[in-house]
């Protein structure tokens, strides 16, 4: 390695927030060295301090945050000693940042042109017209269509993906040495995310900019970075080159993290996920010594909790360091965590069958005194047909606007189907609103919700909320019986019984989701709809909740409709998959069938877009152009025709494609000939050298 000045170097950086409760250390003893052209990933769960690091580098700590120790050297100069004016000159020109929420990061009241032009005006002293010209150039470079129009637009007039491109363009305008990317794709749909990731990779190649890429998603880091820092609870626990950390991790937390995410090859029966036990400590309740200690299976009292731990270099690789006292003692090859294998379950008879289910909304404009408002129709669901069998898990996959939530509403009886049939057993549900359904029907069909913060009513105790379901469905009536069942359910979801008296506010997100699961299963349902039940949870908690959900399902032989956008999770747990796009089913089949050719072009793109945190797999590279159209104004013909790489002009954009059937139950809605579809290559394949 040549002797170069690092672009950025953090030495023993300590950052604290000051609150009424006193000083709360957010980041402790953080070290980082970033060479020119290098891309460094920081990965960790919420609250681990990764964004704090980014803002500290920008010297933007807010009123109650402060750097309490260490140094941040930018090109060799300590930024802590710089004056406000010097900082200002560096910000936006030498160091630029891309943020998590592009919409919120752009000023809603200024045109994009004005916002972009500011950067060259203030940093390079350009005139306004020169600045605008440069902005237009940059917009073209981040591959935005019609940059001239976008310059004149306000942020809300363009889509989320375009907004993020604008933010990236803004960051690149002064050709910075260092680019900070703070979860730049988290708010975006998967197929849009893929486009942004591609752009970022191109930028680092083209401009040679050093990057710090902050994310909770290991797969994304793998796709973008050279080096990686894993953070846990305010500390970096492992640093190293990507391959080293991915393949030869030396910290129990890193390994726990990998064990928690469903990688290709994970299987709910044969190789279940291995969740990290326990939960993240709150910043002011961190244990002495190793922060991960209480959750670590290698924890050794007296050693791990004796002192604040330093980073240790991994022998043989100076650039690979871990914050673990025992990493040398652990046999990393043998002690690979393995979940308990479970026998596969045999699916029973069809429980739920949906036939040509269609749901249209009429959006009326105007009200009591409306002077004639136009009515628009939103086609939320078009002719959905599929079925689910007892003890089977059917995943419904799709991005925003695909109609999966509407489908859930129709199923639950909150909306009437416009057309078609929904049969639960032999009860027609399509036009049976929940008020008219029998108690049994309602009890048979329950739901687990996405957002842990919303799923429970903050005003009532856990016990009361579960008890209400029990009473409502007539499972039990007397106070004692109800309590008994509540306790039993809490046992089932592995929560202590005294949680019955707690209010939701006293629970963590994962615990709330467990309560939500307990509530859904309180009435012994035959079908449970799980609407992204783990997507809002931290990675290490996700696994535990997923496993729990599946165990209960397995035990009760419940049919589960698992709504998700995350194909990795779906691949892991689903028996069958339904892929939706703009209200239509594009493809359905068993998990095996959907994940291998023939693919629907959309499925293919979706599969390609999902980042996989596994160095052993190879992925084909497909990036879709454009954005998802609005469901109120869907394209003619095939809904996917606007973005489809295989689009046949004159056919796809005019005519609705036929439903092609492969094998037993594998259906694809596409104009492409079956042979063309069958001729597709698999998207994900094992790398030759890593193949077993």
């Amino acid at each position, binding site marked *: 390695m040549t002797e170069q000045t690092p672009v950025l170097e953090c030495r023993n950086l300590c950052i604290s927030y000051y609150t009424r409760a006193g000083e709360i250390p957010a980041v402790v003893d953080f070290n980082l060295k970033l060479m020119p052209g290098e891309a460094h990933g920081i990965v960790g769960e919420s609250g681990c301090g990764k964004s704090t690091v980014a803002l500290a580098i920008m010297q933007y700590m807010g009123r109650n945050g402060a750097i309490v120790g260490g140094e941040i050297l930018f090109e060799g100069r300590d930024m802590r000693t710089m004056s406000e004016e010097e900082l200002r000159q560096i910000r936006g020109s030498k160091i630029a940042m891309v943020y998590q929420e592009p919409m919120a990061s752009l000023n809603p009241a200024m045109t994009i042109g004005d916002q972009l032009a500011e950067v060259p005006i203030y940093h390079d002293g350009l005139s306004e017209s020169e600045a605008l010209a440069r902005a237009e150039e940059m917009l073209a470079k981040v591959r935005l269509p019609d940059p001239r129009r976008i310059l004149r637009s306000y942020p809300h007039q363009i889509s989320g993906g375009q907004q993020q491109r604008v933010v990236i363009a803004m960051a690149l305008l002064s050709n910075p040495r260092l680019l900070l990317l703070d979860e730049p794709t988290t708010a975006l749909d998967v197929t849009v995310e893929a486009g942004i990731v591609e752009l970022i990779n191109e930028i680092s190649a083209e401009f040679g900019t050093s990057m710090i890429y902050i994310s909770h998603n290991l797969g994304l880091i793998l796709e973008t970075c050279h080096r990686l820092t894993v953070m846990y609870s305010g500390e970096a626990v492992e640093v190293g080159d990507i391959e080293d950390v991915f393949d030869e991790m030396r910290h129990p937390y890193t390994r726990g993290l990998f064990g928690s995410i469903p990688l290709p090859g994970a299987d709910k029966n044969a190789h279940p996920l291995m969740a990290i036990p326990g939960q993240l400590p709150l910043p002011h309740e961190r244990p002495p010594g190793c922060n991960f200690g209480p959750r670590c299976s290698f924890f050794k009292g007296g050693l791990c909790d004796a002192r604040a731990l330093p980073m240790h270099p991994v022998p043989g690789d100076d650039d690979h360091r871990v914050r673990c006292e025992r990493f040398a003692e652990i046999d990393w090859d043998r002690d690979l965590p393995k979940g308990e294998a479970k026998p596969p379950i045999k699916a029973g008879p069809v429980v739920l069958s949906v036939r040509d289910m269609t749901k249209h909304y009429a959006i009326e404009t105007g*009200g009591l005194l409306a002077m004639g408002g136009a009515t628009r129709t939103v086609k939320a669901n078009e002719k959905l047909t599929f079925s689910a069998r007892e003890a089977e898990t059917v995943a419904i996959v799709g991005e925003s606007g695909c109609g999966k939530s509407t489908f859930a509403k129709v199923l639950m009886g*909150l909306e009437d189907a416009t057309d078609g049939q929904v049969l639960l057993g032999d009860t027609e549900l399509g036009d049976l609103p*929940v008020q008219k359904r029998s*108690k049994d029907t*309602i009890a048979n069909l329950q739901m687990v919700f996405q957002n842990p913060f919303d799923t429970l009513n903050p005003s009532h105790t856990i016990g009361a909320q579960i008890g209400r379901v029990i009473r409502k469905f007539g499972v039990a009536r007397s106070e004692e019986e109800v309590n008994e069942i509540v306790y039993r359910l809490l046992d089932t979801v592995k929560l202590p019984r005294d949680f019955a008296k707690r209010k939701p506010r006293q629970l963590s997100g994962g615990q709330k989701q467990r309560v939500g699961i307990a509530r859904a299963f309180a009435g012994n349902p035959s079908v449970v709809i799980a609407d992204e039940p783990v997507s809002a949870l931290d990675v290490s908690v996700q696994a535990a909740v997923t496993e729990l959900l599946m165990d209960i399902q397995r035990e009760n032989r419940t049919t589960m409709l698992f709504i998700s956008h995350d194909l990795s999770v779906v691949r892991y747990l689903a028996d069958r998959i339904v892929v939706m796009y703009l209200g239509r089913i594009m493809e359905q089949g068993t998990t095996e069938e959907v994940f291998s050719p023939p693919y629907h072009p959309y499925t293919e793109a979706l599969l390609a877009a999902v980042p996989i945190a596994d160095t052993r797999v190879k992925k084909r590279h497909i990036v879709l152009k454009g954005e998802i159209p609005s469901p109120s104004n869907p394209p003619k013909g095939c809904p996917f025709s606007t973005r489809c790489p295989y689009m046949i002009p004159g056919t796809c954009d005019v005519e609705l494609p036929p439903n092609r059937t492969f094998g037993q139950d594998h259906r694809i809605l596409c104009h492409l000939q079956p042979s063309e579809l069958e001729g597709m290559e698999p998207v994900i394949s094992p790398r030759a050298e890593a193949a077993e």
Partner: protein
Amino acid sequence: MAVTEIEAGPSALERLSHPRALIALGLLMWLPLMSYVMGGTALGPAADYILLPAIPATLLLYVLGVRAFRESRVAVIGLTLVFFWLLAAVAAPYLPLLDPNKPIAPFVTPLSEKRDVFFWLGTDFKGRDMLSRMIWGCQRVIVWGVSATFVAYVVGALFGLISGYLSGWWDEIISFVANVLLSFPVMVLFIVILNYLGPSGFNIVVAVTFASAPAIMRIVRGLTLDIKTRDYVFAAQTRGEHPLYIMIVELLPNVRGPIIVDACLRLGYTTVAITTLTFLGLGLQPPDPDWGLMIRESAKTAMLWKFSYMLLVPALAVSSLILGFNLMADGLREMSLRD
């Protein structure tokens, strides 16, 4: 579009350790006070001791309140001001005060003695003790102000829940009526209503309800619209719960937090309204003391520097009570935002 200062969030009151004990204490303080003021002479001899249990209840409530609000100095100051007057209201009959309606010696300036009586705050134009009138004066404004705000809230919250949760025609009709009422400047509404019904405490309740309920309805409606998209409401709906159950059990407790902040502010507004209306001759009627009346009666006699205490005393008293309500609202909001 509605500019509201209220943010949804858990209420600081929720952190009080014993909500049930608190409600009991509140009732113990409030019911005697209310019956004392509204019942008037109908209470008969009971009037002499009915307020006795309210005094310890008030003190205890204050202590509990300070404990709950200790994080916010502003809230504690507000609470202290409000409870000072609450305590004055419940303890007035037992304090060593002169009869507030008894003329003794007119135009005695503060801190001076006349007819062997020392007057801390002087006497008014009729010779009634200002100190005693000031302290007694808080009873009616507090009781009617709180009652009016409470009734307005019950009405406003009910319609807000219905309008927000049921939507559709319910919403159209309720919102239209609310819009009609909101199109009147508040004072115009007050003047018209009180002029029609005649000035009295009960009619103030009616007028305040008409004037405030639409705004409350809007706030509750907005909160309801927000909360009804939450999954737990969805869960209740999918359980087949009756809309009434959802409104009362699932929604109402969760709009409580922001509403309590708004209620504190609105108590302030109502106090202003009652005082102002009384000053205009449309509110509470003499002879019993009330701050608005004190201002009304003194306004024509005290227009001299040396008599200005007659105006200053009630003006400062009413300002301090309203300041108390507003500071409490501020503190509560501050605390709820911190959560």
